[in-house]
């Protein structure tokens, strides 16, 4: 029995009286893909923001690897092995694709500014190592060809994958992906599917928010349905798919929304 890598315990936050996330408890195991689905505004991104330290919960706890990390800022969570991508891209637009990914290496690099100013041999060696690792990751997400292009000039689908590569560069123990396939074409989605699979296989815990139901049902080990901040149903893809409450939620709001997307 493996112990959970990430645990949230009755996590809640309210904005002006509206409970965007309301007592959500979940556990994610290493090497498993845990998906969160739900209609627009259900609180999926807000839940990610709570877990990754961008928001402070009004109540509830977050545990990472057994340690209580509630309220820690994102940079400290990063050092403990948590990384994420963003639904509304957070790209370093003026840097090259390769430099974007290299930023992900930050927590593994030495931080002596004096060493950096004088470009000591150890710093140059480390730079080269970071660059190699970044190039490898770009290759993995199919972006090796644009490594030296300014990120601002890349397509939306490419930027989505660039975010994944950057997050992987931190060598996370848990990876939070917020709609990684949104706005991607079929080929790109397949590529992302494969990457997520590989990531989980390598033992990293994956927490995934995704609207593409076929993708979710195919790759998830566990699915949690959120509705208006509350956890509605939680279980294997099979149980969730056949749950009448989910079907209602889908046909109600989700179904029309999916239809609008098409």
């Amino acid at each position, binding site marked *: 029995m493996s112990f959970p890598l990430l645990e949230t315990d009755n996590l809640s936050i309210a904005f002006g009286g509206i409970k965007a996330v309301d007592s959500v408890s979940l556990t994610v195991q290493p090497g498993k893909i845990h998906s969160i689905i739900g209609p627009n505004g259900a609180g999926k991104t807000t839940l990610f923001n709570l877990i990754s330290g961008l928001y402070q919960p009004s109540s509830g706890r977050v545990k990472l690897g057994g340690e209580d990390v509630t309220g820690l800022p994102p940079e400290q969570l990063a050092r403990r092995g948590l990384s994420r991508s963003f639904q509304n891209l957070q790209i*370093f637009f003026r840097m090259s694709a390769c430099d974007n990914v290299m930023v992900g290496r930050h927590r593994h690099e030495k931080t002596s500014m004096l060493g950096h100013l004088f470009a000591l041999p150890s710093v140059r060696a480390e730079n080269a190592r970071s660059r190699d690792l970044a190039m490898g990751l770009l290759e993995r997400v199919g972006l090796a060809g644009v490594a030296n292009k300014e990120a601002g000039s890349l397509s939306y689908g490419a930027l989505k994958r660039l975010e994944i590569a950057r997050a992987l560069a931190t060598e996370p123990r848990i990876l939070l992906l917020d709609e990684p396939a949104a706005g991607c074409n079929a080929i790109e989605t397949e590529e992302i599917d494969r990457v997520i699979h590989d990531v989980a296989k390598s033992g990293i815990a994956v927490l995934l928010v995704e609207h593409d139901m076929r993708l979710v049902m195919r790759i998830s080990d566990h699915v949690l349905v959120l509705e208006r901040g509350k956890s509605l149903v939680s279980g294997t893809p099979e149980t969730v798919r056949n749950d009448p409450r989910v079907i209602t939620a889908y046909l109600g709001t989700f179904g029309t929304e999916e239809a609008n997307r098409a």
Partner: protein
Amino acid sequence: MARLASSRWSIVLGLAIVIAALPFLFPSNYYFRVAAIVNIFALAVVGLNLLMGYAGQVSLGHAGFMGIGAYSVAIGSAHFKLHGLLAMLIGAALAGLVAFLVGRPILRLKGHYLAVATLGFGLLISMALANEAAWTGGPDGMGVPRLEILGYRLRGPDTWYYISGGALLIGVILALNLIESPTGRAMRAIHDSEIASRVAGIDVAAYKLRIFVLSAIYASVAGSLMAFLNGHITPDGTAGFLRSVELVTMVVLGGMGSVVGAIVGAAVLVILPQALTIFHDYEHLMLGLIIMVSMILLPRGIVPSLLARLRGGGA
């Protein structure tokens, strides 16, 4: 050509050649003096550009740090009989310390709020320098004893041209090294997305503070060199608000996020007013006009805009 102009060693080599070759074109000492002033401002602007152009944090009070460097040299050698070089080092350390203490609270501010807070800091320094007349000579300023090294008195503008040129070269090398390092990537990342930087494990507040301190040290060394060159300094001339604005203008005009741009910006803004004296009464008008037109035609600053055109394959 465009790639050549952006690679690290070609920049350093090119700058070294220019600094070494220019004197052959100088008909008089006056030219050495103007060129030395260019070097000195360029040094401060390279530092400020790390803060503004790379890390994306504005400072409208950076001349305050130049003032600290200038007056450390003047007060150190006049009142405490310290060696000029030692006084310069103390000035740099002092500027770094002040930047550290001031930066912690004000770098939490963003955009216009940060601009106004740094502006306040600059005013504070120049007021203090003007008021402490017993130490600083007040608004009229004070003399700076000549620097003496191994019995030689360093005085001529040509000597200071070469010294300031060397200092600029060192400042440029260090800045270029930094930009291509994890620290450099962290500061560029902070400029584009603080959230993504934090998620990547970057302590945003700590990095802003580091760069602020570093840029303050650049400005302080530049201020010290200015004091040595001029032999006389005033609060307004070193630390005044207009000086701060001048530094920011040099950064933006030359090109944010470009080390070469910083030097070009400094050169243009130091040399133009000298060249425009032929227009007599219309000198300031012409200067303003040229700056405006330059920003309209080259909106990303002189160097980045021209480089983009070269890369674009155009003329």
